[in-house]
């Protein structure tokens, strides 16, 4: 873990678990004191606990043993059932494009990250008069204590040019998740076909909680060319879809008007 702090800038913390970097920015009353460090330690402990239960890379995790049929769901901690229920909701709502079971294998990773980070952030929410932004491998929760001061500005990375942003979004209280091919290659597939989606380069969803925007970003990306259409059917979200041909569209629900606002070729350059 490392701490970088400067006057009037957020204090930053970085650690690794679940095979990804966890970045925290704090500003306000508790940024570099015992309360802040304690909350950060609690956050990391909660993520590591989740990793021990859910990791498909750990032979002895409950999820690995459940997948091999060595234990039943009733023998697993109750949160395993919670996560699988969320996965089932995601599967139904995406028409089967999103599925934690593929080819007989159980892999709830598409649900676990957002869910685990939402839960781990509870320790940070208890810091009074303190704003935080907690990112797990590029998906994040933003919180401002008053909801009325400066937002957290989240840059949305260009899917094929990682030195560029395609958009920025101010978030006071909410979550941002992006799914795409950058960094990890073709790790998302359309569960209906088993193939990597085509046509879409990345999907970013902004909403209330990370559990759902993470599921939705993955589920939308899996649907390829249908991603934007599907996201526009869901209320209370905003976001950005970047297509493989460079088109960029933002979306957001507004009552009584076309939710799609800007479509152009410029930003994806």
């Amino acid at each position, binding site marked *: 873990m490392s701490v970088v702090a400067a006057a009037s800038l957020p204090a930053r913390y970085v650690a690794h678990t679940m095979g990804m970097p966890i970045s925290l920015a704090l500003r306000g009353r508790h940024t570099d004191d015992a309360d802040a460090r304690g909350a950060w330690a609690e956050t990391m402990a909660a993520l590591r606990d989740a990793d021990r239960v859910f990791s498909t890379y750990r032979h002895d995790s409950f999820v690995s043993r459940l997948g091999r049929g060595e234990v039943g769901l009733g023998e697993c901690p109750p949160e395993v059932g919670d996560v699988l229920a969320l996965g089932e909701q995601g599967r139904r709502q995406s028409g089967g494009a999103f599925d934690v079971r593929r080819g007989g294998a159980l892999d709830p990773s598409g649900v676990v990250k957002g869910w685990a980070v939402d839960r781990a952030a509870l320790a940070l929410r208890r810091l009074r008069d303190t704003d935080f932004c907690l990112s797990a491998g590029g*998906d994040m929760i933003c919180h401002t204590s008053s909801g009325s001061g400066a937002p957290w500005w989240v840059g949305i990375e260009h899917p094929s040019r990682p030195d560029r*942003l395609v958009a920025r979004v101010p978030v006071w209280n909410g979550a941002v998740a992006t799914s795409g091919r950058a960094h990890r290659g073709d790790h998302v597939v359309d569960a209906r076909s088993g193939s990597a989606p085509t046509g879409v380069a*990345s999907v970013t969803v902004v909403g209330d909680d990370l559990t759902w925007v993470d599921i939705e970003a993955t589920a939308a990306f899996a649907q390829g060319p249908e991603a934007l259409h599907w996201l526009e059917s869901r209320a209370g979200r905003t976001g*950005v879809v970047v297509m493989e041909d460079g088109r960029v569209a933002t979306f*957001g629900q507004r009552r009584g008007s076309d939710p799609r606002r800007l479509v152009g070729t410029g930003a994806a350059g």
Partner: protein
Amino acid sequence: MRRISLWALSTMTTLVLLIGYHTSTSATLSAGPGADQAVISASGRPAATGATVASGGRTTRTVTGVASDTRYGPVQVQLTLEVATLTDVAVVQYPAGNHENEQINGYALPILVEETIAAQSAQTDMVSGATYTSADYAESLQSALDQAGL
């Protein structure tokens, strides 16, 4: 979901801005029956027009819109225009203060940009991208932000 739209109209081009506020309550903001938009004409009656700056052959102009009173407090938008191209949008005044704002200030519509992170880093707190692994984190924008302490 409640949104306040701020429309900026200029003589050379039409710019559409949207500041969204997440809320479960409703507000009467302006304009007409059923409208949920506050209208500011940047070319018609700006509250203040900042200095026009010419540098490197490019002319930029800053326009600060009229502070618009909403039920939740004043909202004011500042535009930076480069010739006919919008280069920056800054909301210089947000509703501030009371508990009710905790409900309305959730998140907004993303704003498309065409700049590199170097130009943006001062205004970017975190970077959202397809999942970073620990292995490629070292080369990521997020890593740069973390190390720079920005």
